[in-house]
């Protein structure tokens, strides 16, 4: 199955990747080629097979409601591209 340019544009938007035109073209070709190989899984008979999202019988892990040492705001903000006081600084999310 090949994917069209419109799909590439849509997926790039969902993935928040500002791809160049060249990248979009290459992605279209390469994803189409990869999907062609991947489509072999359609041949597997899974009609009565449950899905495995995780190989362990995962259960919610509860911890006691107790405080314990943790990183300080300064440590956590040390890698911030921009900060203001004890906040991460970002561009406006909503227009005024």
């Amino acid at each position, binding site marked *: 199955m090949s*994917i069209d340019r419109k799909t590439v544009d849509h997926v790039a938007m969902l993935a928040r*990747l500002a791809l*160049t035109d060249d990248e979009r073209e290459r992605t279209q070709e390469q994803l189409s080629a990869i999907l062609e190989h991947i489509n072999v*899984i359609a041949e597997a008979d899974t009609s009565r097979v449950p*899905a*495995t999202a995780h190989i*362990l019988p995962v259960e919610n*892990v509860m911890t006691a409601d107790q405080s314990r040492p943790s990183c300080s705001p300064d440590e956590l903000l040390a*890698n911030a591209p921009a900060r203001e006081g004890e906040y991460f600084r970002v561009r406006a999310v909503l227009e005024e």
Partner: protein
Amino acid sequence: MADLWQLSISEALEKLSSGDISAVELTRAHLDRIEAVEGRVRSFVTVTDQDALREAEQVDRMRRAGETPGPLAGIPLALKDVLCTKDVRTTCSSRMLEHFVPPYDATVVSRLRAAGAISLGKTNMDEFAMGSSTENSAFFPTRNPWDLDRVPGGSSGGSAASVAVGEAMGALGSDTGGSVRQPGALTNTVALKPTYGRVSRYGLIAFASSLDQIGPFARSARDAALLMNVIAAYDPLDSTSVNRPTPDYLAALTGEVKGMRIGVPKEYFVEGVEPGVKKAVEDAIQTFVSLGAEIGEVSLPHTRYGVAAYYIIAPAECSANLARYDGVKYGLSVRDGAQDLVETTAITRATGFGAEVKRRIMLGTYALSAGYYDAYYLKAEKVRTLIKRDFDEAFEKYDLLMGPTSPTVAFKLNEKMSDPYAMYLNDVFTIPVNLAGNCAISIPGGFSEGLPVGVQLIGPSFGEEVLLRAADAFQRVTDYHTRWPELPPQKRAAKSRK
């Protein structure tokens, strides 16, 4: 006497405890070795020489003071640059995290520190652990010490090369689809992927969370057991860590494999497996026969769907995990030219991620997007069940399974970079184990035209003791793992020496 960098971990521990050598001497020997070969191999993104020497002095001081040092006290190791190290840059070999300095240690790192191990630095990898050649590093490729024109495998290629060439006595990597075992095979090192949940993933920068697992590189099964004894443990900080006692892996090395039932999956000897690889694996099977193991043929019929299922599930999980790189909290942030927060994010991500990472994010986002979820993601998870059942059935009859780790020996740089799917096929025999969650080890199994061949032993969940016992028994009667690559001399630098 052999150079200090050629010692095994167990030999070094003896010499350290008897006082024959100091931790500083041993660490310095490895830093000198790094200095001597790094220009040709390039295993490391960051060498923490000053920290390493300081830690070594501390170990020596403790020993002199009569304190009991930890089980790996004074042993210099390398860490894949996907493991968070407090105050030491952790890049994932990505521009996105080029200047990222974690505020905490991964659990495996703090366990190694507590055991007295010395960290030499952080090793190169395919960006965000996505790749099979270490060519996807945003910084530089790592070379295979057995042939500098060839790749060391990936994604943990730097860790593998560092152990193969004697820059480190052991190393840690991470294995999502073969990223420990395949570079182990290509560099003649022992490389173990533990059972999912056996080793804490806390502080391992996530790629595909249901598949990722940290594992050791070493130059013998014995050394791998010593590393496992320290890193394998329940960790409340990782909710998928399994609360189960850690056995003494060293005690499992009895040398005894008589009566061990070993299954050989016929699907692992298909077209595409190089004759030299096939021959080495068949010879290894004969070695196990001569040691008294019982060999039989087994079928893992859904092997052929493994790569396809993996390249849906892993990219799907990666697309979600890597959504965190938004240019806000840490990592690269490109704010010029963007009008708003969404654009900032999209430009930052397009600038910070390399081609393979973008490809996988796109593939995963597509597989999860409306209209394709059932055909791809859900279908792949059902196939995952079938692959797990294949193993479950095989382990009803066999103690372990055996085949090639990789269909080929190390390939040339650039050979597979233009064809993503050809690169993905390197992991055809390693991927099923990640999907099923059990454990496997790659051990040196011989050579094909001078290049190492890895033999893969696959165990059931929590079967690490059986794997290590079989690997150790094999190494008691073979010498492949003891051989060293011969590096060609360093090309003369343009700069003349004073």
